[in-house]
């Protein structure tokens, strides 16, 4: 089994009023957006065993064009803005990850998974909801019939062409429910720690050229069924 995850775009200085922290150590596309693009595969495939990466930056200075106090000012880039890595999971899956703020446009799906039964295009992990598309070996696409998941129901931008589902606070609600519920929170510390290990190891691999075997691991988090999600919501 293999796949790709891509989170690439022109950067943050065009829309965020205070974008300087994005370009400092601890920022960068891999620490900013990578959590979505590593955590989602860890939920689907389990933990990562080892990885490698190469990194670079297209520009050392970025001009802020977003409206706000920083407009017209220049931000010094102090962390890689392009990271290409390869993750080998404990289950044997090999996943390529591309994270960049140096890309005008591209043609990759957010997350693609390739199995012997076909391919799966996973929707944008930065949003609740979205279509899940599969293909068979004939290349025929089909959209998995959306199930009625409480966190997939559109509740935002209902007056715009693309309706969004947004249920932020689901994480804290799950963490709180896990305290008295006696289960491991889906957003718990061990998963988060493993993901940070993956993200920082990608940067370290980019610096050193080494293949890094991760020192952390985690259980694959529980799936959140519609009934589980409904149990977190008020009636």
């Amino acid at each position, binding site marked *: *089994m293999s796949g790709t995850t891509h989170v690439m775009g022109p950067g943050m200085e065009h829309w965020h009023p205070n974008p300087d*922290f994005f370009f400092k*150590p601890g*920022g960068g596309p891999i*620490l*900013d957006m*990578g*959590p*979505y693009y590593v*955590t989602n595969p860890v939920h*689907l495939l389990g933990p990562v065993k080892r990885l490698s990466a190469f990194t670079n930056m297209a520009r050392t200075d970025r001009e802020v064009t977003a409206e706000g106090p920083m407009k017209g000012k220049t931000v010094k880039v102090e962390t890689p803005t392009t990271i290409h890595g390869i993750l080998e999971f404990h289950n*044997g899956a090999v996943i390529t990850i591309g994270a960049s703020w140096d890309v005008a446009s591209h043609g990759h799906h957010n*997350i693609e*998974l390739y*199995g*012997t*039964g*076909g391919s*799966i295009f*996973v*929707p944008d*992990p*930065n949003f*609740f*909801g979205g*279509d*899940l598309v*599969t293909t068979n070996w004939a290349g025929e696409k089909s959209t*998995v019939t959306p*199930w009625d*998941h409480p*966190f997939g129901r559109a509740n935002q931008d209902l007056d715009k062409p693309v309706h969004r589902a*947004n*249920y*932020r*606070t689901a*994480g*804290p*609600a799950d*963490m*709180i429910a*896990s305290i*008295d519920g006696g289960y491991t*929170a*889906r*957003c*718990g*510390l061990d*998963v*988060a*720690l493993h993901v*940070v*290990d993956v993200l*920082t190891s990608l940067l370290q691999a980019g610096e050193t050229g080494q293949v890094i075997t991760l020192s*952390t691991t985690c259980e694959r988090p529980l*799936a959140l069924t519609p009934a589980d999600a409904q149990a*977190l*919501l*008020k*009636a």
Partner: protein
Amino acid sequence: MAKTYGVGIMGAGNISAAYLRLAPLFKGLEVRAVADILPAAAQKRAEEFGVAAQTPDELLKNSELDVIVNLTIPATHYSVSKDIVSAGKHAYSEKPFVLTLEEGMALKKAADERNLKVGSAPDTFWAAPTSKPAISSIAASSARS
């Protein structure tokens, strides 16, 4: 009747509006206060959503809060979450919850010692990719790999 956990929001920036707007959908928790190093930012969000505005220090000491959601900038996620745990409260952080593995291990130790939870975003993709059809599709393909 299960306990309702009091929740505080640390950091009144962009994303705090989403948490404050959507938190009332969830049971078992109630957002009671918001804090920011900029008092005006906390005040604005507090008025917008009908919760108390506090200083960061007041939020940490607020006895009505069991959980603090850390929406500060990534550079301060670790130190703020450490303060939250040290204040005896559960912490939930926006991503990335720490910037180094060492910080993460230290936070884990501090939380474990006090029997407190630390959680981290993202929670966004729970509805679609963990759906039953997705899991069975992946299971079907990986079984043959």
